[in-house]
């Protein structure tokens, strides 16, 4: 086949080279074009160079790694100036990009291209830049980027003349850049998609966790009620026992719903606290009384070391009770063999302290950094260790911070955890006055 001397062969190969570099009239799939370019290079004696081959290869590699993205066929300008939309295929979601964003991404990509020294390329978005004087060549990006142009500037116009016929080379450079611009688009969209997918996963995790947590007590109640209705228990004592279990599940369900609602209100910033002077010792005792039965039934020993005189802070009594309930509940959930909880309230150095300490499973240092994050527990996915949805401690932290306080945890694996809430004491009469002036 290789016969460089043959005139007909020479003509055919030149024709082939011309066609392969003609992007506007000779439509080919990227993989076909690459194949043909390589074949021609292989067969022709003086191997022609295809300046776009590099860009084609990059484009092909990219689309192979991102099969769902491909070329942004669905990208269209919107009715709003300078805003573009990209409709995700088969989905009811639309990605929006501003022209500025698109431009900066494409420019970033252009800068990464190996341009010959002295050559610069600028991207012109519609209505953003006037055409610059002195561009060596400019090329339209074409559909869907109507009115977008790439401009090639040369410090020294003789740069290309020495190497080849100028028109062809310029054309090829800009052709390569059009491909590069499309790749940049695919990259933006891929990035956007990843974020969307992560967000969606988080949302569906929340929905399934919430529904699991709500369904568990509901399912138990249904089994017990069905059993009673089936008339298996004729004797009053067993019936009584079942009713008590049902009542307990009912309370658990209410607590869960309260927590979800509190979380949702905190999240939307609509939780309003009713601040008044509150005695933290009374808050702690009340919360403990609520959980006393549950804790004692599970075999817990709860030690209360609460100051004998009131520890007064400015706060919302109900919210603070939620704090103590959630901390006690946390200690309950994460205790294994040793069921021992210490609840402390005291004042020290002009601050009020509330501590809940357990001798449970504890956690490693790196975990203590994350436990106040919402849904933290969710990382464990199906290997669920305990009931709950990972909202409790996040709620505690939000409430404590709304009170101008802070919460820290001291924990070691296997040794237990100690949560310490620190809040400013209620203002004394003199500082209260100052506060009123400041407020």
């Amino acid at each position, binding site marked *: 086949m290789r016969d460089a001397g043959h005139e007909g062969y020479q003509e055919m190969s030149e024709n082939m080279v011309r066609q392969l570099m003609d992007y506007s009239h000779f439509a080919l799939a990227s993989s076909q074009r690459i194949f043909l370019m390589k074949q021609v290079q292989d067969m022709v004696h003086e191997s022609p160079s295809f300046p776009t081959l590099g860009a084609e290869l990059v484009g092909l590699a990219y689309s192979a790694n991102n099969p769902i993205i491909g070329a942004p066929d669905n990208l269209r300008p919107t009715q709003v100036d300078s805003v573009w939309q990209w409709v995700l295929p088969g989905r009811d979601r639309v990605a929006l990009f501003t022209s500025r964003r698109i431009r900066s991404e494409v420019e970033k990509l252009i800068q990464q291209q190996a341009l010959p020294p002295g050559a610069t390329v600028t991207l012109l978005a519609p209505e953003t830049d006037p055409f610059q004087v002195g561009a060596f060549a400019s090329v339209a990006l074409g559909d869907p980027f109507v009115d977008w142009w790439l401009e090639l500037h040369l410090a020294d116009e003789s740069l290309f003349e020495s190497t080849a016929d100028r028109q062809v080379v310029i054309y090829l450079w800009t052709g390569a850049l059009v491909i590069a611009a499309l790749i940049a688009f695919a990259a933006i969209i891929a990035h956007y998609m990843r974020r969307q997918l992560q967000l969606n996963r988080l949302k569906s995790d929340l929905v*399934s966790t919430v*529904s*699991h947590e709500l*369904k*568990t*007590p*509901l*399912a*138990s*109640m*249904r*089994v*017990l009620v*069905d*059993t009673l209705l*089936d008339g*298996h228990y004729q004797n009053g004592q067993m019936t009584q026992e079942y009713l008590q*279990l049902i009542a*307990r*599940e009912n309370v658990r369900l209410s607590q869960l719903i309260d927590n979800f609602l509190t979380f949702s209100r905190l999240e939307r910033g609509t939780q309003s606290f009713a601040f008044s002077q509150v005695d933290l010792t009374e808050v702690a005792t009340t919360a403990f009384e609520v959980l006393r039965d549950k804790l004692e039934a599970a075999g817990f020993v709860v030690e209360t070391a609460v100051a004998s005189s009131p520890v007064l802070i400015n706060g919302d009594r109900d919210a603070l009770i939620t704090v103590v309930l959630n901390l006690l509940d946390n200690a309950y959930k994460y205790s294994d063999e040793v069921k021992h909880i210490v609840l402390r309230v005291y004042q020290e150095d002009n601050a009020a302290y509330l501590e809940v300490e357990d001798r449970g499973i504890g956690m490693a240092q790196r975990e203590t950094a994350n436990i106040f994050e919402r849904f933290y527990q969710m990382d464990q996915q*199906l*290997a*669920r*260790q*305990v*009931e709950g949805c990972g909202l409790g401690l996040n709620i505690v932290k939000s409430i404590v911070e709304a009170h101008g306080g802070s919460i820290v945890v001291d924990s070691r694996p296997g040794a237990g955890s100690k949560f310490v809430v620190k809040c400013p004491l209620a203002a004394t009469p003199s500082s209260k006055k100052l506060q009123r002036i400041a407020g």
Partner: protein
Amino acid sequence: MAGETILIVEDDPTMLRGLQDNFGFQGYDVISAVDGEEGLDKALSAEPDLIVLDIMLPKINGFEICRRLRAAELTMPIIMLTAKGQEEDIVMGLNLGADDYVTKPFSIQELLARANALPRRRGIEEAAV
């Protein structure tokens, strides 16, 4: 169902109590476990005739228990309890060797009916072979 042993693996004490009582009324010998590790141990050592298995369990989840039992060539019927009605969970459970499932909250009559049907179905299959 007299004489048949059932293992119930369920971490929620109230649910466990309800299930124990009901399978007891049916004449099953009931053994139970409150986490995945204990559940797997008891399944391997007692080789019950039927297992009712929650998916969300402490230590080892229900899917994993199911997989390990089948890997150990234990063929007793397994019914999964799932609080998630999601199709992929159910498909995953069945692929790992579960025989049936009910979605929480479920009717105890339905669970009992499914449980009673399973050993019979297995018996028919074995007789046919």
